[in-house]
């Protein structure tokens, strides 16, 4: 395996990241619920992990030698679902059942419904502990190859449980565990620095005994190279933290670093504008919202709204 992407690989992953972003927005607009900001910020991370780095078999989702990924920031589920659909765990059409009663895609992750999901989540700060348990389990099963990836939000590391897990991962010397922090600088109600600062972030993880790597989380070759390092170069008895510097809402100007788009579903016209802007930004054929002619979903309860 080569740490550097070929031009073809780079272009392929760029297209996947664009599709992940585009489909996330389609899902959120169609269901009228979801988190745009935190889905867009991890589009490149999902693309490189699911289409380049991870050893997985979508036709055999429970292959026991597979790499595992836990989305601790489970509200970023649209980006993960889009990656899973594009990778072939289920159809792209099924993405439009997101948040529908009886569908396979819950608002927050439910592993019992969705092929390819490795855990269930929603409450922040809990996923890294589950990842630690999996990494310990791989050790007990004497599987030296498989890796466990855990995607954490920056805001969620304010949760104490994260640091319990971080302490234990270093204690158990889990160099088969990679935590990726989607450092998009923005929380639900404001900027991280304003609400509860988390710096110095790299020093925090390092002081907990982790090997720390930093990368621009939207730079596909850099992300690929960092994940390569995490698998092949760095592991020597320490868990690995990748601090991925990202932009909340990346790809649509009005959503970037804007906490108002943390949880907010656009109306079809706004989604259409956003998608057209995104196509220009990422040099794709012009493409608007695919279901603009369909009625917008509205809550009706006792006849009201």
């Amino acid at each position, binding site marked *: 395996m080569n740490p550097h992407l070929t031009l073809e690989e780079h272009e392929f992953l760029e297209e996947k990241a664009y599709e992940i972003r585009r489909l996330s927005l389609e899902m959120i607009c169609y269901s009228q619920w979801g988190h745009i900001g935190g889905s867009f910020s991890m589009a490149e991370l999902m693309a490189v992990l699911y289409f380049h780095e991870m050893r997985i078999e979508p036709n055999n989702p429970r292959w026991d030698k597979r790499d595992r990924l836990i989305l601790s920031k489970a509200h970023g589920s649209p980006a993960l679902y889009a990656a899973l659909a594009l990778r072939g765990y289920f159809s792209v059409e099924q993405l439009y059942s997101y948040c529908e009663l009886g569908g396979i895609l819950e608002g927050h992750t439910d592993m019992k419904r969705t092929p390819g999901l490795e*855990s269930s989540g*929603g409450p922040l700060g*809990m996923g890294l*502990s589950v990842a*630690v*348990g999996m*990494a310990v*389990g791989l050790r*007990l*099963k004497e599987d030296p190859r498989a890796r466990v990836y855990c995607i954490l939000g920056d805001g969620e590391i304010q949760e104490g449980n994260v640091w319990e897990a971080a302490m234990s991962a270093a204690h158990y010397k889990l160099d088969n565990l990679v935590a990726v922090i989607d450092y998009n600088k923005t929380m639900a109600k404001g900027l991280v620095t304003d609400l509860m600062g988390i710096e110095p972030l790299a020093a925090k993880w390092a002081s907990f005994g982790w090997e720390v790597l930093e990368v621009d989380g939207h730079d596909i070759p850099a992300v690929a190279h960092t994940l390569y390092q995490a698998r092949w170069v760095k592991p020597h008895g320490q868990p690995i933290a990748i601090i991925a510097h990202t932009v909340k809402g990346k790809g649509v100007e009005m959503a970037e670093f804007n906490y108002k788009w943390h949880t907010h579903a656009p109306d079809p016209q706004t989604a259409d504008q956003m998608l057209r802007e995104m196509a220009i930004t990422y040099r794709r054929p012009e493409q608007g919202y695919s279901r603009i002619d369909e009625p917008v979903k509205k809550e009706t309860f006792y006849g009201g709204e």
Partner: protein
Amino acid sequence: MAESSPLNPLEMRDAFGQTLIELGKRYPEILVIDADLNTSSKTVLFKKAFPDRFIQVGIAEQNLFGIAAGLALMGFVPFPSTFAAFTSRRALDQVAISICYPKLNVKIPGSYVGLPTSRAGASHNCIEDLAIMRALPSMRVADPGDNADLRAIMETAMETDGPVYFRVTRLTLDDIFPAGHRFEWGKGVIVRPGQDVSLFGTGMMTSLCLRAADLLAGEGIQAEVIHMASIKPIDRDLIVDSISRTGCGVAAENATILGGFGSAVAEVLAETVPAPLQRIGVRDQWVDSGGIDELFTLHCMQPENIADAARAVIKTKRAFTIAT
């Protein structure tokens, strides 16, 4: 370690530690995870027998249950062990969403339950675990009446796929059941037949119900004593059957009366054969430090209190019968 006998009684937590070893021999997938309490919970016995299958997480209960979830996802059957107070308060979100929501195969022993937990006070005397665990979808809940019952619950828990919460009392209880006793989810057991009043006990309170029945028998009142280790699912049929014969009941638990076992019995009665019921348990109070006997007296959970409650419900039943 010796088996329990009248001359050498075994605390339930020791029986728990021994049973873990027995199951550990039969089920290589069992792992025990501890948050720095193994000599109190007695998981230390498993640690000595299977050091490679014992994981120490330090004083970090949220991490304890998260790691248990991860290990279950890898095909192991973890027993994450800590005090019931920390399971049901500190780590509830992890128990609920990391374990119960995906129905993972995790068996959770709750140590130090109810009043007999040494003299640690309200922070450690866990009275709300039954109510809290019962409220979680897909969780099964059991409170054993004696050591044989505990063994049977642990055996059945291993044969049951999915999350289980069971209590381990820090006390030596009277033996109720013979060796080889079997436990089934949703099945209660009539341990003493009677026709005047039904005494429903769970956990250690069944012993106290039996003593109350002795007191009542001296007055010519024949109490039926039913042990219901399986709190969720609960044996609706047996509750209905017994109450249809006796017309009134008492439900006793080593826990708060709000939302736990007594509430479960009351729910069944309200939905099937409404009948007078009194509940024995902690009545919306914190359980402070004190001697075990003192605490049972203070919280009106002694056999005499159960007998008083039985006399009261019998009176209510008669008044109701005359009125109608």
